[in-house]
């Protein structure tokens, strides 16, 4: 028994699609130093992928990892992660994309903690993993299929109970925001990794595992099941709703619609996803059920942006809860004795944007097409469609002949447009299949990206028109998300300063996993002058490190961070693996993973201070709902504070040797030094750091 492996199952498969070979790598090569999940992926990518590699090159490696809690029964452990060079990032960079479902657990039952996909199959291929045997099979029967039919076909071929990930036509056609999708419509979306699978001629991976995963401490595990996320433990009936949406997006639905709540991943004690029943399908007369997460609500109607309440980001011990409980409408009762209660729940209305009127069926069709084609819904709802709406209203599309009149309120046009870009039809299909960031630049960014839309109005300052560009691009080829403008823009300056700093040091919209949380009392300390606050910087670093752990241990965006139970991830890790781990030690592991991510960006993609400040700063020059922006000086002061706190050189944004070595990454520092990318630390003349000065 003493040799039994807990949490992990012990091996990672290196799958070479060009050679059709499989090599088994011991997971112990990477853990516990690199924890699991994204942290292991970072290490593998650092070791194996050279600078100059592009997203669609066979040399790009798509790395998939579970975490030590996956398939142990620890809630949220079913979340897993892909990493690789993202075709959807602008410019192409290394990124990650989380995914739930049952695939990761099944992989562990088959005996693998993860896999590395490398090379490119000669012909369309899919993988069938049956316990430790990995088979390369021709994908001819699957190629061209929509997502759900492909999932079903794999069950027909290999039997019910197999767990699969597939790409749809968008991935096959190298659409840069193509998803990888599980059978329950969980997606790895933000990286565009569906297109990387397509570039490797890999349609699907399907698994049947019959083995077991052994958690180390079952008593503790049950304690965690009882405590994590405060599980509902009450009946959750199917509910007939009379309306859909909220605020100006509200739609009365004739006859009502049925809502259920479903879980996203294996063994979780939450049911965060909304199931919309008997909805209109884009592909058949038969009604379908659709899984919806938060952004999906806007497919149905988008006249007003999402409203915000401070409790979504800033919390007290008396009043804090998982954000997913707002979608499932299962929030705990408000603790009225909380002195901050009125402020915590004060609703800030979203801007009026008038993108499209509510239309229940059209929204359903849009969702279904995204699901079946395998396209990132976020990009479609928040970027493609909003751009079409705004660009048309500003008269920018008069000279562009799509072959059909642009009208985002017309279901037929939505179908036509999504079909056009997925299958790269006509003159504009191939342009938009490259994703909005690239399409805008092909068309001409000044006109098609930066023209101001005159239809955005603040509801904080009623009647005030606010400038916003027709393309809701923020940084790294992604659209705004909790950044004070664009989608979910009603967060005040102190909030969007924090989220923008998180974005600046990332390679994608990171708010799906680094959604900023901080204690309300801390927020009160920095809300007047966020750019000069060590408290805000520490909050950003905490959120970033916790995000690293979410994708490594694993946990999820809805579960973590719990500001009032910071040891949660360490307790979960130890319960799964039996390896003692304190919160501090796990935070060090997160910092190490983050440093590796930084090192990859520096070595492979030329990341430095100039690059990232210039990527994020311009998009903060459009006003937030209060008319606020940030000055160049203030932003750079904040960046100084952040770099200093991280132990990075403030001139270059590169971590110092001392910082790398502090976290056991001497060899990384050595390699960066050889590449001329290790800064020489500059000591402040008075030996007092900026952050010390701010604190004093």
């Amino acid at each position, binding site marked *: 028994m003493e040799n039994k492996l807990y949490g992990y199952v012990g091996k990672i498969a290196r799958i070479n699609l060009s050679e059709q070979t499989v090599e088994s790598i011991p997971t112990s090569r990477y853990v516990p130093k690199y924890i699991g999940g994204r942290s292991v992926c970072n290490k593998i990518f650092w070791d194996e992928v050279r600078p100059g590699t592009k997203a669609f090159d066979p040399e790009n490696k798509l790395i998939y990892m579970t975490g030590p809690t996956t398939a142990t029964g620890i809630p949220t452990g079913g979340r897993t992660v892909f990493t690789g060079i993202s075709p959807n990032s602008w410019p192409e960079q290394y990124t990650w994309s989380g995914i739930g479902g049952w695939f990761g657990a099944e992989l562990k039952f088959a005996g693998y903690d993860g896999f590395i996909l490398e090379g490119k199959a000669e012909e369309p291929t899919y993988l069938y993993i049956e316990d430790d045997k990995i088979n390369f099979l021709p994908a001819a029967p699957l190629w061209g299929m929509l997502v759900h039919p492909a999932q079903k076909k794999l069950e027909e071929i290999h039997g019910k*109970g197999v767990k699969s990930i597939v790409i749809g036509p968008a991935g096959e056609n190298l659409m840069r925001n193509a998803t990888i999708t599980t059978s329950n419509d969980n997606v790895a979306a933000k990286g565009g990794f569906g297109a990387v699978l397509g570039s490797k001629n890999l349609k699907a991976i399907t698994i049947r595992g019959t083995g077991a995963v052994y958690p180390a401490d079952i008593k503790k595990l*049950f304690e965690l099941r009882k405590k994590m996320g405060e599980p509902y433990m009450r009946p959750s009936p199917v509910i007939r709703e009379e309306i859909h949406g909220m605020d100006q997006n509200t739609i009365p639905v004739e006859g009502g619609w049925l809502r259920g709540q479903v879980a996203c991943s294996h063994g979780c004690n939450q049911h965060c996803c909304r199931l919309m029943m008997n909805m209109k399908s884009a592909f058949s007369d038969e009604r379908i059920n659709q899984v919806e997460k938060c952004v999906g609500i806007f497919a149905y109607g988008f006249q007003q942006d999402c409203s915000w309440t401070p409790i979504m980001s800033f919390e007290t011990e008396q009043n804090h809860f998982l954000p997913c409980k707002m979608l499932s409408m299962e929030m705990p009762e408000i603790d009225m004795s909380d002195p901050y209660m009125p402020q915590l729940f004060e609703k800030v209305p979203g801007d009026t944007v008038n993108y499209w009127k509510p239309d229940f069926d059209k929204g359903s069709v849009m969702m279904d097409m995204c699901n079946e084609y395998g396209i990132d819904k976020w990009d479609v709802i928040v970027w493609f469609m909003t751009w079409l709406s705004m660009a048309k209203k500003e008269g920018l599309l008069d000279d562009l002949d799509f072959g059909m009149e642009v009208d985002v309120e017309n279901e037929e046009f939505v179908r036509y447009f999504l079909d056009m870009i997925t299958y790269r039809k006509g003159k504009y299909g191939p342009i938009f299949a490259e994703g909005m960031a690239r399409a805008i630049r092909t068309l001409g960014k000044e006109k098609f990206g930066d023209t101001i839309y005159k239809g955005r109005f603040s509801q904080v300052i009623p009647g005030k028109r606010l400038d916003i560009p027709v393309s809701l691009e923020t940084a790294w080829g992604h659209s705004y998300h909790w950044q004070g403008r664009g989608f979910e823009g009603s967060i005040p300056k102190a909030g969007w300063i924090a989220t923008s700093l998180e974005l600046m040091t990332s390679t994608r919209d990171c708010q799906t996993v680094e959604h900023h949380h901080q204690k309300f009392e801390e927020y009160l300390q920095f809300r007047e002058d966020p750019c000069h606050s060590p408290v805000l910087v520490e909050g950003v670093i905490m959120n970033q490190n916790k995000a690293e752990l979410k994708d490594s241990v694993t946990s999820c965006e809805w579960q973590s961070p719990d500001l009032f139970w910071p040891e949660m991830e360490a307790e979960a890790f130890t319960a799964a693996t039996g390896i003692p781990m304190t919160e501090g030690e796990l935070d060090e592991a997160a910092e190490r993973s983050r440093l590796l991510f930084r090192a990859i960006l520096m070595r492979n993609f030329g990341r430095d201070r100039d690059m990232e400040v210039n990527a994020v700063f311009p998009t903060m020059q459009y006003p937030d709902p209060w008319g606020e922006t940030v000055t160049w000086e203030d932003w750079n002061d904040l960046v100084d504070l952040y770099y200093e706190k991280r132990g990075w050189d403030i001139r270059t944004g590169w971590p110092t040797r001392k910082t790398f070595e502090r976290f056991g990454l001497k060899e990384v520092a050595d390699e960066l030094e050889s590449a001329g990318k290790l800064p020489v630390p500059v000591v402040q003349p008075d030996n007092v750091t900026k952050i010390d000065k701010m604190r004093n």
Partner: protein
Amino acid sequence: MEEKNTRTYGNHIVQYSPDYSFCAGCTSCEVVCTLTRDGLVSPCHNRIFVDRDNRSMIHTVFACQQCADHPCYVACPKKDEAMKIDENNIVYIVEEACIGCSLCAKACVFTPTRINMVKSADKAKRKAKKCDLCRTRPEGPACVEWCPVRCIGLSDKSTATPLPKEVK
């Protein structure tokens, strides 16, 4: 439902109507079953099954119906040693004696079978896994106790409640 009208069953695990509680498909019941009974998580050890419909997301939970005439017990070549009947007429498996022949699983009148089989290259590790309502557990069936949405419970009748047509 697969049960034959002529059969009678003992108290067993049932899935409630979605009007009462809708199965979230989380498979916590399967996971908790194997954690409680076997100290692990595995798709070959669970004694309760979530038949996931990944298109409709309407999932069906099933477990042993505790047939009154217990055909699994009848088929067992090591009955009263590997498979026994307790004072409540519940058939349970004594794993140390089970030889993993799977005759009990094949004898189950339901499709798919309500008896799981541990798969292993090592014949000695092949065992049958059947719901016995956690007969020795003071709190009762672990799956019922830990279902986060309370969509399963013990029957007070001998048939499961069918899903309403509307959400099928």
